[in-house]
């Protein structure tokens, strides 16, 4: 293991998140077994009191997980000089078989926690704990995800050894490489940008009208998830080369580097928030029958508005990066 301060901080954060969610998970089991809003028993009152704590601590875990996702990517980039052949985060993540699975797990946890918190907020606004059961059933899904992410992260850090020979981003995101990264890099940049523009237009359009109906909100969620994929593909195939001003440099991680003004964060943060908000508004749809119509509409409006703003910001940043670039790609 490499004894690096950010690694210690990330492990500590995972440990705290896991401990907090272990406690919350145990409580969720108790709540799902004994919850009875009609009862005035002491146990029911205690359960009601503790739900406030659980909401607070899971919100805390979300903040920690979001920060840890950013720190993890940032730190992977900084560790690159320790590995032979690594130029950026890709090399560090490739230095162990657990690297990329940890990153994906962190992304999944981020979205899962985002959705859970959205449901929790809506539940907090209802008078009769209408969403309490689905919310705590969801917590029993979220908690194992956080444990798994923590375990993967620990396995990754324990497996890291300085001087490991790894491959740089050119190897993973080379146009002729037979893997997903290679396929994305080999995508026609105009096609990728066209698809992204179409997807974003659709997502923003649906976001604007999503408050009007449940079906539209559900569709908006599906499109948001699709836009997330399209955006990652467009970053690899077109936006990143525009940032580097090199047609064959496709790495989606180097844009996080200082050399490029950390512009990657300006792209990824709104994209992640928009996707999380889109997913949350769609996942609320099945439960809307249980809650007050005004609360449901307000929640949907808030989430879709966040998604629209996120998508718009992402689009603006992407356009600015392409316009500002000295690279000209021709069809």
């Amino acid at each position, binding site marked *: 293991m*490499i*004894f690096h*301060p950010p690694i210690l901080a*990330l492990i500590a954060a995972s440990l705290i998140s896991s401990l907090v969610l272990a406690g919350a998970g145990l409580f969720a089991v108790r709540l799902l077994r004994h919850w009875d809003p009609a009862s005035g028993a002491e146990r029911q009152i205690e359960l009601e009191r503790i739900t406030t*704590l659980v909401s607070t601590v899971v919100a805390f875990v979300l903040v920690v997980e979001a920060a*840890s996702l950013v*720190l993890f990517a940032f730190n992977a980039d900084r560790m690159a000089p320790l590995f032979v052949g690594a130029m950026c985060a890709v090399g560090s993540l490739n230095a162990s078989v657990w690297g990329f699975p940890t990153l994906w797990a962190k992304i999944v946890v981020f979205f899962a926690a985002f959705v859970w918190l959205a449901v929790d907020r809506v539940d907090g606004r209802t008078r009769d704990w209408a969403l309490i059961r689905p919310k705590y059933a969801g917590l029993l899904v979220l908690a194992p995800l956080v444990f798994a992410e923590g375990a993967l992260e620990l396995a990754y850090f324990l497996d890291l050894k300085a001087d490991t020979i790894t491959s740089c981003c050119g190897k993973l995101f080379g146009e002729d490489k037979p893997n997903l990264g290679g396929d994305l890099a080999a995508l026609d940049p105009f096609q990728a940008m066209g698809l992204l523009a179409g997807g974003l237009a659709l997502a923003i359009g649906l976001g604007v009208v999503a408050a009007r109906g449940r079906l539209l909100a559900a569709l908006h969620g599906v499109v948001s998830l699709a836009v997330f994929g399209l955006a990652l593909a467009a970053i690899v195939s077109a936006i990143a080369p525009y940032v580097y001003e090199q047609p064959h440099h496709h790495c989606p991680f180097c844009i996080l580097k200082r050399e490029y003004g950390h512009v990657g964060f300006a792209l990824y943060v709104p994209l992640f928030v928009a996707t999380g908000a889109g997913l949350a508004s769609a996942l609320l749809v099945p439960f809307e029958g249980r809650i007050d119509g005004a609360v449901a509409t307000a929640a949907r409006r808030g989430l879709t508005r966040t998604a629209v703003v996120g998508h718009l910001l992402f689009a603006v940043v992407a356009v600015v990066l392409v316009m500002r670039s000295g690279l000209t790609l021709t069809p």
Partner: protein
Amino acid sequence: MRATFERRRHLLDFAVRSLARRPTKNLGLVAVYALVVFVVGSVMLYGAAIRREAAAMLASGPELTAQAMTMGRHEMSRSADVAALKGLRGARRIEPRLWGYLWDSAGAANYTVMVPTASDTAHALAKGEAIVGEGVARARKLAPGKMLFLVSPSGKFLKTRVKAILSAESALVSSDLVLVEEGDFRAFFELPADAWTDIAITVTNPREVTTVAEKAGLKLPGHRFVSRADMSRSAEALFSWREGLTLALLAGALLAFAILAFDKASGLSAEEKREIGILKAIGWESRDVIAVKLAEGGLISGLAFLLGVIGAWTHVFFFSAGLFEPVLKGWATLYPRFPLAPTLDALEMATLAMLTVLPYMAAILVPVWRTASADPDAVMR
């Protein structure tokens, strides 16, 4: 949107006033908290600064160094070895180097005695001249023009006049350095004319270092080739390890601090309890009380973090981190005194926040909730 913002603003306003009502308790907490941030921050800022210094220092070295090996031990290279490497493709310059260590009983320190390479015209020396590092000058009270006398282990005497003192910029490597002329060096250490300590190879294209090393290895199978990247990796790993180890040792202090925070947040005064009771009686919900209490925690964290970071930054960059220097830098008699370039890095700050603010906020969550969810009637009574 506006209503949400206004609500948050009022809650924050309430939190500030609430903190101001109990200045002694809160200032005490801020002081301890800031001290924790200061200690952890000093270790991190110093570790990062020293890694940067090492990287900057290695950046000017040759891409490859060849050392002759006999039975796994370092051996002197011969002029024939240097000749064998001549014409190596990809190598811009191949220069044999002469350097060695000398225990100086007068200064009670180890010096690195070296001959400037042929390409290093800035430090070219005539017979009887020397250029010394900042640490040597300090230990022997030298100034340009003064005489420096060295005695070899076999009793040979070298008398040189100090031509210049090396700048403190690269002090981490040059502090204990004594540069002398080749003839003086060979006579002093009784070295044959064709012996060299090692061979420095400058490679034109940094991507070809491995290939050049492989090709050179075929020509000189008895040599080992160390690349600059290897050395910078070792330095990075070593300093990171020291920094990490020191931080791990500080984990106990962090835990103690988290316990203190938990205790402080749990132990409410009668007045505070009454205040919360009144708030709940007039219609505040538990969530609002939690929001205010967390805002208080956030304000305390923000203030303590700011104070701690300013303190650590001043300590490291203006006082050379006097408290942790020996642990992180390593120890030697002639350790350099060098000013570190003041920087503030986002990753370091994020890590520091995660190591200090996170345990604090985690520690106050449960007490805050317990306070907020208490029955107004029970707390006021």
